[in-house]
């Protein structure tokens, strides 16, 4: 409503502004006294307007019946009044003034001006055009003259704003188009040059790399003098970033595809060529892609001395930096504490969990990591990851700690913990399962029911029967019946025989079918 009112108000204001504009234009008919006098001279007689000569000193009318149009000394034309005034001045030296009368009533000059303006505005009189003093037709005269513009050359160009503006726009368009083409050409030329250089450097690098890897032992490689090294990889070339980039990429690619002492040689060569310094510089870059490249290089080339710098990135807001930094610290750090992972502020994605799991699983074969530290994280996704690790790595020794934590954690975590107990199949923690079976959270009950089938006891079977009596949803009923069948087949058969409900019979036929039981 307010909007509509504002629009109406704005429209009215607009109309008022327009009205003012129109009135302003009307007032321009006789803008000043000079134009009014000129109009009176041109117009001749004006209905309702008359003139009288008065004495300029005392204002009394000058009696001159002979010069007036009427017997009371009124003059109908302004030119006549002017002529009379001049003759009086010459003959009698009387200083006369012209008085304006509107419908016989004496009035002031402005009043007369307003009166005439109104007549004109209302169309009561039509303004006469001034008589051509020369008595010639202006247009015909103009036709005889050869046309020449008032403004010519530069002044004509700058004098016309529209032409100037269009010219500027067109010029700018051409300038921008030219600059764009120039930019594209330079960009393409530089890219082509880069590609050519990459190929050239590739060929330059392959030979010396092969030679060093096959001709030198690890000890020989480490004891090579700078001069010997620069014979294979010229110092001048090593100063070029693109050459270094090719060298780094090739060494990293070989490191992935080679095995045995070749890996050690490649790592030694990486350090001898001081490529590790370039890697360290990348870690300090403000560009995230460079930082990630640096982290990959640290990881691939086992640059343990860079670990402090890498640790600065483990809680980076950038997903890629954070993921790669954590993976690198996991791989290279001797620390078994995992505190850097515990203190992660950002939630772990499934991809990150997979990646870290792969590394932790590998590390677990060599050393025992303090996975329990992850249970104390303020980040729920880290705690959940910790519970999953217990399950996947098979850390049965941590189940007691999970049991301690169970009552104080969220229901999502309870589901994960029960899943872990069920997966590891430890039957000593039935209390957790039984208490969860009485939860109000359906997902937790389903998980607990599933776990009860593996690690439940007689109490679990009783609770399951209670739940079945409460007419649960089809999905829960299916899980409950499946678990009951595993826990106590006699109770299961008894229940199925007693309950004639259609869904119970359907589930029973499904569970009884050896082909469908695992579907």
């Amino acid at each position: 409503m307010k909007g509509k009112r504002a629009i109406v108000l704005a429209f009215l204001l607009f109309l008022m502004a327009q009205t003012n504009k129109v009135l302003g234009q009307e007032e321009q008919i006789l803008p000043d006294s000079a134009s009014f006098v000129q109009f009176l001279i041109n117009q001749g007689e004006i209905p309702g307007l008359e003139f009288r000569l008065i004495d300029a000193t005392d204002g009394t009318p000058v009696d001159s019946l002979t010069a007036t149009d009427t017997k009371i000394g009124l003059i109908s034309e302004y030119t006549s009044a002017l002529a009379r005034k001049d003759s009086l001045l010459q003959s009698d030296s009387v200083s006369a003034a012209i008085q304006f009368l509107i419908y016989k009533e004496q009035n002031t000059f402005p009043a007369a001006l307003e009166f005439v303006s109104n007549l004109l505005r209302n169309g009561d009189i039509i303004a006469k055009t001034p008589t051509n003093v020369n008595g010639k037709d202006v247009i015909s005269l103009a036709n005889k003259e050869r046309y020449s513009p008032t403004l010519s050359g530069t002044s004509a160009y700058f004098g016309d704003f529209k032409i100037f503006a269009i010219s500027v726009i067109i010029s700018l368009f051409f300038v921008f188009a030219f600059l764009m083409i120039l930019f594209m050409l330079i960009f393409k030329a530089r890219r082509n040059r880069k590609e050519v250089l990459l190929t050239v450097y590739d060929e330059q690098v392959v030979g010396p790399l092969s030679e060093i890897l096959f001709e030198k032992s690890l000890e020989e490689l480490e004891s090579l003098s700078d001069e010997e090294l620069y014979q294979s990889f010229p110092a001048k070339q090593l100063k070029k970033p693109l050459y270094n980039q090719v060298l780094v990429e090739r060494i990293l690619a070989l490191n992935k595809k080679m095995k045995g002492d070749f890996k050690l040689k490649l790592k030694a060569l990486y350090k001898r060529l001081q490529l590790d310094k370039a890697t360290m510089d990348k870690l300090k870059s403000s560009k995230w892609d460079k930082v990630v490249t640096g982290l990959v290089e640290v990881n691939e080339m086992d640059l343990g001395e860079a670990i402090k710098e890498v640790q600065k990135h483990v809680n980076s807001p950038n997903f890629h930096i954070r993921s790669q930094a954590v993976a690198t610290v996991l791989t290279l750090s001797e620390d078994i504490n995992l505190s850097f992972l515990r203190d992660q502020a950002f939630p772990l994605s499934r991809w990150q969990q997979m990646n870290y799991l792969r590394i932790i699983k590998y590390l677990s074969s060599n050393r025992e990591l303090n996975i329990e530290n992850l249970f104390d994280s303020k980040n729920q996704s880290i705690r959940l990851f910790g519970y999953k690790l217990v399950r996947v790595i098979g850390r049965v020794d941590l189940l007691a700690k999970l049991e301690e934590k169970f009552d104080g954690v969220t229901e999502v975590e309870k589901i994960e913990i029960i899943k872990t107990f069920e997966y590891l199949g430890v039957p000593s923690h039935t209390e957790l399962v039984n208490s969860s079976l009485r939860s109000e959270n359906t997902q937790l009950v389903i998980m607990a029911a599933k776990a009860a089938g593996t690690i439940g006891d007689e109490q679990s079977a009783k609770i399951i029967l209670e739940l079945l009596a409460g007419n649960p949803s089809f999905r829960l009923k299916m899980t409950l019946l499946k678990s009951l069948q595993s826990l106590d087949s006699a109770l299961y058969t008894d229940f199925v025989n007693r309950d004639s409900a259609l869904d119970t019979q359907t589930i029973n036929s499904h569970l009884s079918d050896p082909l469908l039981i695992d579907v």
Partner: protein
Amino acid sequence: MKKILIIEDDLLISSLVQFRLKKDGYDTVLVKDGNAGIAAIDSEILDLIITDVMIPFKNGIEIIHHAIKTKPQTPIIVLSSLGEEEKVVLEAFNLGVADFIPKPFNPNELAIRVKRILRL
């Protein structure tokens, strides 16, 4: 001098293998794609073929098929990543390749296997 054909699109790997085999006194022919590989099999007199599985235009299995059909006496070594499907490796063995070397590999180990195959 025994001649070995190397079909590998990775310049670095092929150069390393070539360097190592030349060091052992073998003559090598290096090609980067499947079409060039088949052309080389048809035109050259070869003692051994070393091929990658994933190469441009024609894959390693097609190369093996062609080589067994046209040069049944020439032994073949397949060089490939462990990540590649098991069935591809099995198919290669079923076709009758002499050896399979998974990547990452040690070029010295490859050289020993080449020596063993060529002595047989």
